[in-house]
């Protein structure tokens, strides 16, 4: 029968994802619309299997043009038929939008998600009607089988599969051809071919998609295998949760019987093969081959020890071969195109492709098939489109719940069986779950452990009890009850389970925990030692996401609440308990708190920083005098450096009764706050007000006195009678560019440039062309300052892209508004000039491999340099502490010049402690404050011997009642901060931000969701339930 020729084919994805987003409605609507317009004989609609791009479902491709539409709804159909099918125009609204640029990508072959994919196993998925055997045959279906049966002996078939190098796609990667050979050689008249479609990994759905989208490929593969092994009966073991896969596989089996492709004497070859479909009840462990066979036999699905291996004694004691869906689906292609074709794809040891279910915090979730050897970074960033909402990539879990997580350092790892195994992860069945900075890796590991222990069959002791104990330990850690010994226990349990468990489930259960411990050790330490969950997830440790995100742990919900009630002084008191610099931070803090604010998940975060500024500004007329909370002690402490870390440490120690002297080299106190941060962000009188408060606590600040010149470290301790010293010397040494010409006149490092401006002796910039090199806050500060000093042009040269800039987004945005020009992916290679700078030679860069920070490393594009005329070059590419003044008295330092300190900030010299940028490298005020607090606690403990309890009580959080109904503020919006107009502010040093009015601030404070109260309520409820449960157990 001649098929009608259609003018266009509309392929609508009918995979599970698209079905869930109502692709069937779209198909029906298309049918009706085409009929209405009499186009049903011209245009054909095919409801296909999975296209993979589930995040964008329902997806549709219209051939012959290859127009790609996504998120198509039935209501879009009339317009779509009219525009595209009748008039031949693309409907831009339905086209795929690139996630960062939001540009429409109308054609399938241009969509980056598909760009790097190579579809072999999934070649028919999304292309043919999975319920039509004819369409499968039309795509060379059963040609591989036909070749095997008519041209090859069973041994030749096995030889071909062996030569192809196909490795088991279930995850273990055993050579498929070899497995077939074992079964072929096994003694026995009755043999079984079994397909493992018990896909139990959460988030993995590749086997499902194949059975739903191209079931015949599996049947053909199994039939080839049956011929190769001399088996006449087979089973597809598919979990009952996959009704569509079961329906389509059963239909395909029926069709094969009709066509003589199953049953007796297949294609006249004399070979017979009968195939059954067995539904599994959904136990994860039934993916293990011996458990799977037990389940087919009707017994409890549990593994048994091997030997005997299934190839010798499998289903009902007969030789059996079990392969994964994907392994069978690959086989017909190998038989058809030959082993050489197959092993030309992928890597030498892992030929072919791998399919991953890409899920989690990634823009393009879905099913992707890639050649083996592609890097993790390419899958996540090029195909997956990176992490949504500008969050940072943290880790990817490969291999499902028994796999392992890998961090940024693994992004360049090629994806194949052996490379993944080497770095502590597994290929597994191909789940790939991406997580961002909001995920706690301890909790993440615990989540998988909960799954694995719940799915343990309970047969062997190591898995049954060991898994549970591992979970017990992780639970303790996430609840803040962990100890460092627990980490040893984890390792012992993991080793015991790996070595002694009966099956792979038990052996691999510790995988995620081990990987998390290997790559995210610091998070475990934070939970145990600091009782802090860096990601803000573990509810026992997280008072509120904002407080948790604040390096100094400032009690945000409490002061925000008090602001809403007009109790500014009380609010400030709470703030200053942990951060004395409210006026400063209200202006310059990057507000880590806002980044995590839960309200931000609904609309926009609370304007915490601006509320803080408002609160602090109310006080300027009635300045704060810090209270002394302990008796005077007869001990002297020296603080070297009058920046935020030094001053905070000094303040705390003074409050606790120590006599504190701060030695500051500059003529002003404040460190980088005074010498680096420009006045348009932080007016000097505001800073001075805050420093004056600290002085009122009894802190003596000695200016113009520098370490090395006026005194030495040993002198402080021996001659000058200080019992302890806090080194808070900042990071004032600027990193050199390392290019020719950088010592020419006109090259001024940002540290020097900004300091000179701050001290009233600015470099002459007026009318000049200025290039700032770097992408951090100092670079932006220098650029905006140069503009205000009257520079003709200001350029910022940064070697990566805007997305990778470490500077605050707001700062970059404001700088752009002011007319500063940014040159991304550009790096200086030479400063041009004879004696003075006349230009800067730049070289364009492209992004290459990933570095440790998870960002792509810029790689120069050779031979593409050009010179930009410049008068001034300001390098701002990094800072480190200047320890040259210490003349060999310095405590041990790290390679980057920062002091080597313990967790309590103690240095290698007794009685000497370090804090702030001198430890962290260039950081923020709030991070310096946090270190100042810690240094003070450590000094106090050092001088008193032991950590006095009084501090804990003093620092304890006290919950404030909410005095408003949050529902009333459900639709309130975050107010915009009034700012000086961009065209004006570029020319003066007046403050850019103007501050909130009282009413605006009070209302904004009431947008706070008070997560702290919610948590208290929940914890009280948990405690009640636990008590009730204990009572029941006792009774």
């Amino acid at each position: 029968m001649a098929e009608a020729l259609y003018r266009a084919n509309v392929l609508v994805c009918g995979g599970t994802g698209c079905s869930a987003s109502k692709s069937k409605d779209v198909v029906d609507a298309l049918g009706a619309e085409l009929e209405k317009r009499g186009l049903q004989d011209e245009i054909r609609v095919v409801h296909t299997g999975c296209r993979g791009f589930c995040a964008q479902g329902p997806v549709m491709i219209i051939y012959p043009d290859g127009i790609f539409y996504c998120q198509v709804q039935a209501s879009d159909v009339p317009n779509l038929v009219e525009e595209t099918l009748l008039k031949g125009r693309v409907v831009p609204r339905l086209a795929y939008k690139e996630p960062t640029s939001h540009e429409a990508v109308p054609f399938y072959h241009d969509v980056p998600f598909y760009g790097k994919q190579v579809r072999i196993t999934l070649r028919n998925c999304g292309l043919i009607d999975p319920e039509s055997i004819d369409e499968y045959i039309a795509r060379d279906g059963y040609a591989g089988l036909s070749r095997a049966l008519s041209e090859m002996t069973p041994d030749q078939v096995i030889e071909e599969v062996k030569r192809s190098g196909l490795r088991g796609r279930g995850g273990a990667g055993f050579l498929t051809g070899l497995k077939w050979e074992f079964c072929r050689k096994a003694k026995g008249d009755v043999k079984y071919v079994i397909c493992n479609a018990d896909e139990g990994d959460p988030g993995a759905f590749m086997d499902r998609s194949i059975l739903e989208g191209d079931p015949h490929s599996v049947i053909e593969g199994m039939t080839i295998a049956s011929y190769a092994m001399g088996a006449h009966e087979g089973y597809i073991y598919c979990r009952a949760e996959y009704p569509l896969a079961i329906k389509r596989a059963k239909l395909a089996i029926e069709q094969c019987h009709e066509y003589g492709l199953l049953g007796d004497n297949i294609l006249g070859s004399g070979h017979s093969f009968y195939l059954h479909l067995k539904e599994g009840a959904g136990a994860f462990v039934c993916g293990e081959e011996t458990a799977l066979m037990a389940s087919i036999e009707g017994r409890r699905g549990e593994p048994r020890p091997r030997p005997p291996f299934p190839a010798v004694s499998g289903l009902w004691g007969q030789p059996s071969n079990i392969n994964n869906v994907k392994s069978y689906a690959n086989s017909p292609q190998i038989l058809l195109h030959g082993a050489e074709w197959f092993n030309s794809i992928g890597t030498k040891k892992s030929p072919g492709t791998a399919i991953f279910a890409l899920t989690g915090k990634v823009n393009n979730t879905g099913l992707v098939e890639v050649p083996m050897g592609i890097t993790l970074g390419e899958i996540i960033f090029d195909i997956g489109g990176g992490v949504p909402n500008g969050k940072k990539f943290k880790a990817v879990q490969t291999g499902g719940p028994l796999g392992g997580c890998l961090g940024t350092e693994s992004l360049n790892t090629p994806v194949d069986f052996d490379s993944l195994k080497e770095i502590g992860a597994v290929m597994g069945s191909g789940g790939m779950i991406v997580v961002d900075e909001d995920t706690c890796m301890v909790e993440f590991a615990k989540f998988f452990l909960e799954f694995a222990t719940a799915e343990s069959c309970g047969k062997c002791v190591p898995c049954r009890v060991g898994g549970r104990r591992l979970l017990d330990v992780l639970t303790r850690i996430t609840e803040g009850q962990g100890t460092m010994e627990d980490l040893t226990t984890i390792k012992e349990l993991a080793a015991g389970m790996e070595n002694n468990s009966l099956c792979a489930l038990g052996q691999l259960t510790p995988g995620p925990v081990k990987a998390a411990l290997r790559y995210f050790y610091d998070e475990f330490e934070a939970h145990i030692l600091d009782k802090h969950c860096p990601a803000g997830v573990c509810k026992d440790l997280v008072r509120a996401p904002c407080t948790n995100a604040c390096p100094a742990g400032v009690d945000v919900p409490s002061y925000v609440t008090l602001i809403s009630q007009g109790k500014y002084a009380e609010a400030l008191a709470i703030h200053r308990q942990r951060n004395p610099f409210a006026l400063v931070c209200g202006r310059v803090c990057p507000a880590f708190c806002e980044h995590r604010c839960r309200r931000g998940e609904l609309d926009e975060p609370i304007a915490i920083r601006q509320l803080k500024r408002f609160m602090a500004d109310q006080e300027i007329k009635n300045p704060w005098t810090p209270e002394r909370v302990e008796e005077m002690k007869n001990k002297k402490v020296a603080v070297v450096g009058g920046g935020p870390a030094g001053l905070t440490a000094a303040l705390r120690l003074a409050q606790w009764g120590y006599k504190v002297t701060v030695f500051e080299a500059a003529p002003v106190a404040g460190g980088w706050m005074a010498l680096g941060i420009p006045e348009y962000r932080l007016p000097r009188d505001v800073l001075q007000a805050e420093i004056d408060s600290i002085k009122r606590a009894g802190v003596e600040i000695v200016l113009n006195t520098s370490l090395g010149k006026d005194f030495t470290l040993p002198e402080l301790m021996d001659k000058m009678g200080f019992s302890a010293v806090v080194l808070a010397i900042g990071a004032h040494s600027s990193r050199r560019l390392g290019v020719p010409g950088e010592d020419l006149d006109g090259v001024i490092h940002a540290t020097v440039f900004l300091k000179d401006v701050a001290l009233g002796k600015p470099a002459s910039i007026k009318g000049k062309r200025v290039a700032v090199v770097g992408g951090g806050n100092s670079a932006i500060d220098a650029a905006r300052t140069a503009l205000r000093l009257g520079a003709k042009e200001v350029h910022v040269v940064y070697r990566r892209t805007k997305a990778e800039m470490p500077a605050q987004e707001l700062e970059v945005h404001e700088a752009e508004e002011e007319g500063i020009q940014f040159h991304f992916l550009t790096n200086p290679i030479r400063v041009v000039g004879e004696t003075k700078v006349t230009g800067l030679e730049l070289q364009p860069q492209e992004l290459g491999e990933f570095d440790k920070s998870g960002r792509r490393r810029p790689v120069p594009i050779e031979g593409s340099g050009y010179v930009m005329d410049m008068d001034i070059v300001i390098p701002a590419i990094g800072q480190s502490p200047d320890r040259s003044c210490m003349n060999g008295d310095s405590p041990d330092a790290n390679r980057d010049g920062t002091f080597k300190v313990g967790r309590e900030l103690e240095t290698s010299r007794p009685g000497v402690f370090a804090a702030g940028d001198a430890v962290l490298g260039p950081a923020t005020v709030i991070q310096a404050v946090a270190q100042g607090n810690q240094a003070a606690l450590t000094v106090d403990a050092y001088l008193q011997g032991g950590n006095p309890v009084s501090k804990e009580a003093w620092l304890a959080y006290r919950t404030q009642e909410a005095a408003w109904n949050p529902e009333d503020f459900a639709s309130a919006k975050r107010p915009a901060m009034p700012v000086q107009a961009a065209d004006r502010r570029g020319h003066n040093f007046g403050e850019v931000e103007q501050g909130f009015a009282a009413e605006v601030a009070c209302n904004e404070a009431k947008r706070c969701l008070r997560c702290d109260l919610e948590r208290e309520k929940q914890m009280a409820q948990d405690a009640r339930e636990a008590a009730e449960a204990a009572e029941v157990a006792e009774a």
Partner: protein
Amino acid sequence: MVMVNLVINGRKISAPAGSTVLQAATQANIKIPTLCDHPALGSIGACRMCLVEIKGQRTLQPSCTFPITEGMEVQTHSTGVVDARRFVLELLLSDHPLDCMTCDSTGSCELQDLMYEYGVKQTRFPGEQHAYPVDDPNPFIQRDYNKCILCRRCVRACQEINGAEAIGMVWRGFRSKPGTAFDGKLEDSNCEFCGMCVEVCPTGALLGKQVLGQGRAWQLTKTQSTCPYCGVGCQLDLYARDNKVVKVTSHWGAPPNQGSTCVKGRFGLDYVNHPDRLTQPLIKKDGKFEPASWDEALNLVAERLADTKQKYGGDSIAVLSSSKCTNEENYILQKFTRAVLETNNVDHCARL
């Protein structure tokens, strides 16, 4: 018989082809510790106590299931193996009540013996323990799953020896335990209370209720005996304390029962020490039973039988025999009935 040569702990031995490593070792008097293994039951490799090091194998292997091959080299007590066993024991200990002081199994507990052998005094892995109620209301078997180590011997005995299949494994993971369908009570299941589960239980999880508090292993004297309940002649081991039978176990390795026992033999011998039990013949005199000697009693019976036969003929007498008697006794009784009493009125309780 085809023999296979292998080396265990450096000793060359040979064992029949098809043996497991454990069987070969046992035969050569090399002791490998076990918990889930039982000679009368199929091997499942679950408890991981019998793990051994086999040259060429990536991980330790359970000797109870691993078949021997020619030239195989096995280490049964290498450091790695001993560490593995200790790991398993520590895990078991972490979920086991430490009430050995009052546990009836003390002295006959295989878990206790292994803890002692491997010097496991405490666990590195403390954590949540099970708190199952011990409340199955049946008259025979106490089920205390807090002491269960999930060796599944009970389940296999129930399936493989008795065939009742009253219990199987229920739930999964740490929650898994032996249980009846829907984890209910034994009385509501197929259970015949043969007690084979109690017989094979290595710990105090399953105990005969009558045995509780009656004495520990070392306080009891064992006597092999024949079950008095029927003619099969099952061999039992009776445990007596102060001349009182307190416990019955199967006697393994002897015909006719080869270790198998039914509910009567195991749980029905409490009548032995019952105060109402007849210990000597009684003769009714003046409406009251009076103690008599065997001669008196037998003479009286013989006299009366002869009398009755003479007066009313043999058919006036009927004889009913008991299945508690042996075949030989039953044979003699019917012979006596037909040849001496001259009647065919003879029958047997088993027909009722």
